[in-house]
């Protein structure tokens, strides 16, 4: 029921274009553009919704009601905020490096958006089914470090500079356990293709086969998107807003919205690698596969938010110590144990 809505639309579009006499290459191009546009619009809408959800979750955890005035149940709150921010002036301080300063908030949305190109939103619903999908996502996601650094450096402000340096230090050091934790799953499946990894989880989800890897991935993921308890980048009490200090209006909003975009990437990857992607649990296939994917991603996002409003921010030395002294050795140990386990399984002929 509803399983083939989106694949059906794509197939229908292809047949229509073929019937209209469009050459196959052009029709394939048009279908691809439509797919990517759909993904971009879907992700943008999600980001707008996530800001609202974040505020609601925060409010509920703090015994408040949260936004409820703009639109029904406050649903248009983010829209109103964005419209307000669009109307505001983007102040450019005299001493900033203008081009880099203005390019950073524009580019900050690019890495998460690029990563979404290979995410399978449902069975056979990956816009581009790359055979090195995991590698591509990791490579693209790590690009955002540079963009935060661009913002921090070009602002010519000591808070921005310190914040930018923190972003680079944090994201580079947590990139390592993030990638190493995914390595366990890749060893089990023997492939980098996202579709094949999801299909390999038909029996058991990898969260059960690789619980430690899941935990490491999750912690590193929280750190990677700079959210509490790892949001030292924008530790207000120390460095105002970190690399975003000098930004105003929509420039600032872009950074904030991109944070939700990256959070979605991390949640999607978590769903794909550990929670069985679009596969329905317990064979509950009465809901379409894309809907299961959506539920799992949102469950992950909710946990992100839940954690954000529970834990205080940790210190910068604790952050580095935890990353290098705990997470990296643990993820290496996980790879070792996985390798040994695989060898034993193969030896006893399972």
């Amino acid at each position, binding site marked *: 029921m509803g399983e083939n809505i989106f694949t059906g639309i794509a197939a229908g579009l292809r047949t229509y274009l073929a019937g209209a006499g469009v050459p196959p290459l052009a029709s394939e191009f048009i279908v691809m553009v439509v797919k990517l546009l759909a993904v971009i619009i879907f992700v943008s809408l999600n980001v707008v919704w996530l800001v609202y959800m974040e505020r609601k*979750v925060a*409010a*509920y*955890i*703090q*015994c*408040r*009601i949260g936004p*409820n005035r703009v639109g029904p149940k406050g649903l248009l709150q983010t829209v109103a905020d964005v419209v307000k921010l669009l109307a505001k002036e983007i102040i450019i301080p005299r001493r900033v490096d203008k081009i880099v300063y203005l390019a950073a908030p524009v580019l900050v949305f690019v890495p998460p958006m690029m990563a979404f190109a290979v995410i399978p939103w449902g069975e056979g619903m990956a816009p581009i089914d790359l055979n090195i999908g995991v590698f591509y996502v990791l490579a693209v996601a790590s690009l955002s470090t540079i963009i935060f650094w661009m913002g921090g450096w070009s602002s010519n402000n000591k808070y921005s500079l310190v914040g930018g340096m923190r972003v680079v230090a944090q994201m580079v050091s947590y990139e390592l356990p993030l990638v190493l934790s995914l390595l366990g799953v890749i060893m089990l499946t023997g492939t980098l293709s996202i579709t094949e990894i999801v299909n390999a989880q038909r029996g058991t989800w990898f969260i059960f086969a690789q619980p430690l890897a899941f935990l490491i991935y999750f912690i590193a993921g929280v750190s990677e998107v700079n959210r509490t308890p790892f949001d030292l980048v924008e530790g207000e009490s120390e460095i105002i807003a970190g690399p975003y200090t000098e930004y105003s209006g929509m420039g600032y909003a872009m950074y904030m919205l991109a944070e939700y975009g990256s959070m979605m990437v991390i949640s999607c990857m978590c769903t794909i690698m550990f929670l069985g992607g679009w596969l329905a649990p317990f064979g509950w296939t009465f809901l379409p596969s894309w809907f299961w994917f959506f539920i799992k991603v949102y469950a992950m996002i909710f946990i992100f938010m*839940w*954690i954000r*409003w*529970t*834990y205080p921010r940790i210190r910068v030395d604790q952050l580095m110590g935890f990353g290098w002294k705990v997470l990296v050795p643990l993820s290496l140990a996980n790879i070792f144990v996985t390798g040994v386990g695989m060898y034993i399984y193969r030896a006893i002929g399972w």
Partner: protein
Amino acid sequence: MFGQGLLKGLAITWKELFTRKVTVQYPEEKVPLPERYHGRFELDVDKCIACGLCANACPNKVIQITKEKVGKKQYLTKYVMRIEYCLFCGLCVESCNKDALKFSHVINMNQFFRDKVRLVLVDRPAPEALPEEEPAEAAAERPAGARAKTAKAEVAAGKAPGEEG
């Protein structure tokens, strides 16, 4: 066990997600005001004898009373409170011997213009003679309700002008 505290914290926030929310949605819901709430002032002109005790009690000289002598009695013609200086201490209400000055539960006293802030409780001309000074028979002869009517009109004049509130 390591991480026990983290789980405990998560459990607490999870519980808080479902607890009753303490927010009071103000214009729709209101917290009931206590009986003795210090809100807008109300003056019962019929009870007021224009003694001026309230004006004397006021630490900020908020109350300005104008009175005229009508017959043998003092007649209150104007009772103005410069409410912008009022600290709502309630000394005036306490000092009133006749229970004429009281606090009401009206809390929205904000105004767009400063000159509208001033609270005019009574503003009326003094009559030639007080109705109480008429002979008892004459008072009885007057149509019933007429006195009540005039009194009501005076109170209405003493209430806030239409643009206030």
